[in-house]
């Protein structure tokens, strides 16, 4: 299962994520970067369903860039977090009508396959004098996000956003089965205003704990940091080397 965790330090925020792309029992890739650089001073670490993860974080990234183009100034981390949460919340409950004559004629597969909630209502269409069944289905994004950023005025911040659009500003947070181990480690050893060395030490402690105690522990992790100098990759922690991807 995907492990994502992060914490806020002295003048920086750090996030770590595992790097395995898994389909049921198969590991397709063990160097998949799940921490996207949202803009110069923001990082978005996402875990969840494969398609949703990439598509939703790219959607947030492009909208954040659009705001900057339109307004000439970048969004604050809090604003970006609230935007992300808003999109997740909208997708969660806003049902779109999926009209299907086929459902009425029983040609489509069982509605149980569709994600989210379903209500069906018969709709009488006056112009065509037919009766079509309309499905109202919601299309939630199954992505859990840790958004880390640095603002000049307010310093570093970390936001916990889960797939049902919960939003919390936190000092430390984690998602996935790895959170059972990393949260306790961070609760025990975290203190506010940690230096980069102390924070990396804590992150490594969490990674070691996950590797030794989680039954299907991911072997490799990527660590990214954001501070006044910007968002960048800090290190990889690899115990299994995958075939290197040729750089684009």
């Amino acid at each position: 299962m995907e492990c994502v965790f992060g914490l806020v330090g002295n003048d920086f925020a750090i996030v770590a994520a595992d790097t395995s792309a898994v389909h049921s029992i198969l590991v397709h890739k063990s160097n998949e970067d799940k921490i996207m650089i949202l803009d110069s001073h923001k990082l978005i670490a996402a875990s969840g369903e494969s398609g949703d993860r990439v598509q939703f974080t790219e959607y947030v990234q492009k909208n954040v860039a659009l705001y900057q183009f339109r307004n000439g100034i970048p969004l604050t981390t809090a604003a970006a977090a609230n935007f992300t949460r808003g999109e997740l919340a909208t997708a969660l409950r806003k049902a779109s009508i999926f009209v299907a004559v086929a459902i009425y004629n029983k040609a489509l597969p069982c509605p149980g396959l569709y994600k989210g909630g379903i209500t069906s209502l018969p709709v009488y269409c006056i112009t065509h004098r037919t009766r079509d069944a309309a499905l109202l289905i919601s299309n939630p994004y199954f992505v859990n996000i840790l958004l880390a950023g640095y603002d000049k005025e307010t310093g570093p911040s970390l936001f916990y956003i889960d797939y049902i659009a919960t939003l919390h500003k936190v000092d430390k947070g984690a998602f996935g089965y790895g959170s059972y181990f990393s949260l306790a480690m961070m609760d025990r050893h975290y203190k506010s205003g940690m230096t980069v060395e102390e924070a990396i030490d804590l992150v490594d402690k969490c990674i070691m704990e996950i590797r030794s105690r989680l039954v299907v522990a991911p072997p490799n992790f990527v660590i990214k940091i954001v501070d006044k100098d910007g968002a960048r990759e800090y290190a990889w922690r690899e115990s299994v080397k995958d075939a290197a991807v040729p750089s684009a």
Partner: protein
Amino acid sequence: MVKPAKGTTTLAFIFKEGVMVAADSRASMGGYISSQSVKKIIEINPYMLGTMAGGAADCQFWHRNLGTKCRLHELANKRRISVTGASKLLANILYSYRGMGLSVGTMIAGWDETGPGLYYVDNEGGRLKGMRFSVGSGSPYAYGVLDNGYRYDMSVEEAAELARRAIYHATFRDGASGGVASVYYVGPNGWKKLSGDDVGELHYRYYPVMPSTVEQEMVEVTGA
């Protein structure tokens, strides 16, 4: 619960000389083998291939659709589309249909301006860039042989033999894979079909029957 995988074995990997793509050719409906001669490697355009795993109709239709879009891109931009772009087009289409029952597990392999490219795209909208992938119910078996024998600096013949062997071993153990192991090579001048061997014949090529001495022989019981 382990999700039932798409009944097939396909694989592709990048190596020094280009991309090697291989697949079996069996189509099964539950326990019934409906065909032993399905073309699972789809020619999108002369320098790009797609593999088929999952629903045959879905894969064929959407690969043909992707080929159309790639050609339109060429006409509009006066240059070939990259493998990155083609796979992103397909991934976005499949993502927009997610939850509606499409079953597609495909790899887009090609050679563009940046060299060889390989992407895995599936019906959930997931898209992964990588050096080697195997998709289908026989993929764990193929991965074992492929991972073990893989070196980046192989010749075309060695890579083809590795691909063929991996498909053979997957068809040996997986009931939903079989038929003919096709191997394609994608190089700087486009793709080329290298071989299509029946896996039954491959078995005896790899493990020929050796004449051996009999351990125990049945003899007539003398009447009593």
